[in-house]
């Protein structure tokens, strides 16, 4: 499946089990999909191999690093630990769904402004954890920001610029509402 993708290097390794497929319907970033998925496929593999959405990254593949974080039915989760079959009827938001057309979201703009990324591998997961935090707490304390991204590893930035970016995005988002 990966070989058909242009973005071959970004594809998560996946072997079809050959077992009967399961029919699921779900929504990703506002688009509705109907797919027949392998029962052993994870949500992350579904995003990569079936939908060709390569923004969500696979780091550890075991729920430790948070690079694969997406928002599933309003909750941030590690997509590497969710089976694709479990996403039946789900509404999913990935990093590709944060911006509007060619315009980046406030959160993404602040990440750039504060140099909250270097290699960028953790960034999609970091953004989804931050999005989920600002959705449930529009005015988070630094402690709440740290707690919200505790499940996202970054090996470049030392976290401080990320915390600053999220704090600033929270302020800008609140101002945008007034």
């Amino acid at each position, binding site marked *: 499946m990966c070989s058909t993708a242009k973005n071959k290097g970004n594809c998560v390794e996946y072997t079809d089990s050959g077992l009967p497929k399961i029919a699921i319907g779900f929504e990703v970033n506002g688009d509705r999909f109907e797919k027949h998925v392998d029962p*052993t496929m994870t949500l992350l593999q579904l995003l990569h191999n079936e939908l060709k959405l390569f923004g969500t990254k696979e780091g550890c*593949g075991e*729920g430790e690093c948070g690079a694969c974080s997406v928002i599933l039915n309003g909750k*941030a989760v590690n997509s*590497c630990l*969710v089976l694709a079959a479990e996403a039946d009827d789900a509404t999913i938001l990935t990093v590709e769904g944060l911006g509007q057309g060619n315009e980046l979201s406030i959160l993404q703009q602040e990440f750039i402004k504060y140099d909250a990324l270097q290699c960028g591998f953790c960034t999609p997961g970091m953004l989804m954890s931050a999005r*989920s935090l600002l959705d449930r707490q529009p005015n988070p304390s630094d402690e709440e920001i740290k707690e919200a991204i505790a*499940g*996202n590893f970054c090996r470049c930035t030392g976290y401080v610029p990320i915390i600053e970016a999220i704090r600033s995005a929270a302020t800008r988002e609140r101002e945008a509402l007034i």
Partner: protein
Amino acid sequence: MLSKFDYVKPKTVEEAVAFLENNPGTRVLAGGTDLIVLLRRNLLITDHILDIKGIEGLHRLDYKEGKGLYIGAAVLVNEISEAPMIQDKYRALSQAAGSLASHQLRNRATLVGNICNASPGADLSTPLLVYNAVVHIEGPEGKRELGIEDFFTGVKKTALKKGEIVTGVSLPDVQEGDSSYYKKQARVKGHDLATVGISIRRTSEQETLMGMAAIAPTPIRLRELEKKLKNRDFNEETANWLKEEIKNHVKPISDVRASLEYRFLVSGALAKKIMMTLMEEGVK
């Protein structure tokens, strides 16, 4: 992953039990934060995964005065840590839930999954122990209830029989003046199993209940120590005594996370800290 499994999602407990009975070796999926990791590491091979999240009744989380708290098998750890009523009445449970792994994992992991996994260090075991939780089980023979202490039978072993599932856990109601506190020591915050986990509860009748994890093959109640605390007030002297005495009541081992000596040390330190904290809050 090497394991080839199909995926079933029953709508009722009866359907689930019937499937488990007819398909030995089926693994029950709640949050998947332990199960999917094992499958991905190829440490587990199974033919069937049974997802219990489609059973409506298992999502029940409620508190009734006089009856207590009920937590269904599909209730998320985050739902527990965020419930104001649990923070208010069963604080140690709320603290333990909030300390488990990361936000993303707590959005998938379930309390019942945590105890069914039966790790000696299960984060949510010690609050359940001090609140005398009852485990609700359903299987081919019907329903049964089991005290949480009898549920853990060994490292990664529970009292569940073939074809049985845990449908929920209930905690008896607590009186005004009842207080509890949970603490855990881990190498790093968030992403580690507890080196030592401890819950201490002081009831309104000045009875003390203590539960500990990661210091024996299963999470345990320290019943002998509780007896010795019976006629003692909570004060600094008792806290210092407890710090030393607790070492006679735990049986830790050395493993990848900590040495036996360190676990003895941490057990005493955490127990003292909790007692001092409760005292500062006015618990006698």
